């Protein structure tokens, strides 16, 4: 499903057990006035979702005030979705995994491997293997705009 309206994606985040996955691109993407990391923190704080910080993101996320962050490896998170959930990053298996900060191929691989739960890709391209995904963004600016809209819609 390519959900073109970011506000509808924001609605999908509400009322669900959400685990955010923050990948290495969160460290690398700087939109100028904000970093991709900032959006992860804002979404996390607004919906009270913990963050599985993958790549080298844990220190930066903590520094930016994320309230619940735990270092994990991206593939591990998806792997644990196959079994009874025991990882302390979240108290039970999430209903929805949100992927931010992964390249298109990585996000597609991770999202399509999750069978016992929903996934949402908030990347720069449409991810067909995800339950919900932002559409292709022709530029970093358009991508940022979508992320802004999601954050605003979360209230």
């Amino acid at each position, binding site marked *: 499903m390519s959900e073109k309206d970011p506000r509808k994606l924001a609605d999908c985040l509400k009322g669900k057990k959400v685990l955010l996955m923050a*990948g*290495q*691109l969160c460290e*690398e*993407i700087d939109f100028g006035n904000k970093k991709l990391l900032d959006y992860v923190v804002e979404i996390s704080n607004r919906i009270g979702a913990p963050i599985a*910080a*993958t*790549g*080298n993101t*844990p*220190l930066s996320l*903590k520094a930016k005030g994320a309230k619940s962050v*735990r*270092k994990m*490896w*991206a*593939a*591990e998170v*998806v*792997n*644990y979705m*196959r*079994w009874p959930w*025991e*990882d*302390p990053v979240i108290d039970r298996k999430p209903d929805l995994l949100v992927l931010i900060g992964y*390249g*298109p*191929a*990585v996000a*597609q*691989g*991770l999202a*399509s*491997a999750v069978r016992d739960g929903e996934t949402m890709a908030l990347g*720069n*391209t449409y991810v067909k*293997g995800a339950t919900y995904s932002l559409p*292709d*963004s*022709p*530029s*970093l*600016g*358009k991508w940022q705009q979508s992320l802004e809209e999601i954050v605003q819609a979360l209230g």
Partner: protein
Amino acid sequence: MHIRKGKTMETMEEKLVRKRFDPEKRFMELGKTKIDLARLCRDARGIEDDLRQVIKEDWSEARYNDWDTRLHPFAEASDLVVQDEALLNNYPPLYTDIQTVCSDCDNGPCDLVEGEGLCSLALDPFQARLSLRVACRGCQSQFMDTRGLLDYAVREFGRDKEVSLGARHDISDQALSIAILTGQYVRNLSHLERALAYAEAQLNKLFLASYQGTGSVFDFENMTFHCGSVLLLVQEVSELVKGSCFGFQKGADRDKLEMDHWPPPNIMGGLGSIEKGKPVIAFVGDNLLPAWSAINYLKENELTEKIEICGPGPVGLDIARFYDRVRIVGTMANAGKWIRSGFADVIVASSGCVSLDILGEAKRVESRVIWVSPQPIGGLPDRTDNPGEGIINDLIGGLDAVWVRDIDKVGEIAVRVAQKVKRKGDYLLSEKKAKEEAKRCKEDCDLCFNACPNSLLIGRALRKVREEGLSALAPIEKGCYFCGKCEQQCPEKITIRDLIVATLNKRAPDDKFIMRSGRGSVPEDEIARSAFTLMNSPGFCWILSCGGGKDIEDVGWLANEFTGKGCVTLIAGCGAVEAARYFDREAGKFLFEKFTCEYAVKNISSLGGCTAMTFLQEASAHWARTGVHISHYANWAEVADITHRLMAPPVIIWGRCPERMYAVAAGLIRIGHQVIVGPNAGFAWKRYLLGNHFDRSKWCVWDTSSGRKVETEPGQEHILIPVETKEEALTIFWSLQQKPGASISIMRLLSLTPYIACYEKYFGELPDDWQWYVTTASDLPVRQKVRLLKELKEKWGWDTEGVTIKKARHRDGRLLTTDEFAHEYSTHEARFFAKTPKLVTKKAKENLRKEGYDV
């Protein structure tokens, strides 16, 4: 057994034994024990003499009597299920980027989400079948190259030509990758012919199964593993031919006491190492023979000082083992970039591990191409039987490429063309033109970023080029492996790769490094010698790379980190070239100058080119012989079990990951390694083998002497995991170094210390599993001991006092004295232990049968 008319009838098995075993060769003595080959293997025809020699010279009588060894000469995939079952039970495959529709036959397409296909194949087995197909494809070019090499060697030297990995190898460690699958004791080219024919037949069967097989996930993954094992065998065939017929230097021919400084760091690399003004011949691909032919011609005609021989990729590394004047430009993954830089006058090309538009790239810069592989390319006519003079004249006269399959001709043609060909030599964008080209980049467009497999921010850098010039592209160039996807997406059709090459050209004069050539195999006497130094080392580290990571300096960084922390580091293939670029500014030395090259602590050795990857398997699997006296001939299961639990270190595979590397990884995993693959390309493999450290039922071993089952720490948690960054790779490496086999506290201390240190340094927290690896207080990092003991007490409920542990908390919740804990958790009490109850002693099996185990 059937009884008729008072006579005992033969059973089916007895009949088969009579048919398959020559009575003269079936029985033999080992010490006081009578050995029955029919008890050891199903069928030994054609291999009896080798097995008898191996048993006589390489077996332990005590081990034979105590253990229930079963040999599988010329093994099929399904002969080797014992270890594969143990692995896949602990690490069930996780398939990513699932393909749901199967169109592999004319009954299809079948949508497997809806249910099984018409052939009964289900969704997960289909993913496993695709995994097998990738591995099979990954083997093909290597198999083809090895077949060509071996056939050529047989024609040149005859089947009786002796082969060896070096003088220090004997029957106990000769050609392990071949012997472990076939049972052969390899001594001459005819043995290699038989081994390669076996491998080719295996690949045929595996390929067929990858399209028509309808088994389970396990069946296909067992075959994928087998594909990898067979590839490592084929690589060893190559290495034996190269080393025995084509003059490759071999460490095993040298005195082991000189191995700390041999081979010397005398191989020059990088574009800047090529002497200006000299004709340049580049060899690209897998095929070594054209280079051998050309260098022989150079030597015969005293031209070695006058022509530069270069090699991006595996051939360059191969050449370095017999010709130290070679200039190794870079890795195979980046070969397109090097070629477009225009450094070569003549390119002699063969198929290799990555796809490359070699004709197109060479034509842009007027490099003449001589294609030597058996398969056609780009519609070139086959000129193998044309007169050489005509081919030379055509190429000098302006013809851009020829296809010549006759290796003996190619060397001279390449040299003579290089001597006379004229190229205008001005192919790169100037700063001014680059800025103009960059001006076409739109302000609000990043489609190139969306397309880049390394997620490089190309557009942003291009827009900086307008003002800052090409230097703004420098970080992008270092992470670009020239796939061209950015150009495909660019609406303005900006020639991004031309800009990348122009940027490369700016740094080319300083692109110089020094490396050691490959040493070849590591014989058992060096492996045994290294054991004495291991008490001061966090372990072994194997690194592989084809290049093409997000930063050209990552492999060097990793190699420096591991070796600097005291690892015994081995590197093979193009990764050695990447590692060689690492320059320690403080020491003023390149990596291979900074560290010595013994198989010992705080040393790094380059084994050689792509085919030398087989020696990684050997270096690990030899420990079964060195440490536990298990002969490896046709004895996969016992060797792999020991290797996995005791010695096989994590392997880091970094950068672009072609299908060949997928198969190599499968082979290394099967013998017991854990593979860490990254950064971005690692996620493209679509199949990972991940454990779950929360599931205690998966983490246990069997005491081989009693059969007692013991819960262990979840060491070696994964056997194939992708990572995003080099820091993740470094940290999870230390995690995977935690082995149930490390029953000596100093070994736990040495691997737990960097694990915790890296985790805290890069991620700012303690790992969530460190407490499971602690068995005594002496396992804990010295400087962190007080803090960690406090954590054990307060968070995990252990009973500690001062710097000692009085009672440990078992994962089942019980608080146990240290003696009880040592008995019930991990491996402190077992002399040896196995990952599966099928690999314990005869006596232990008796005990297990009483408990209802099917062993």
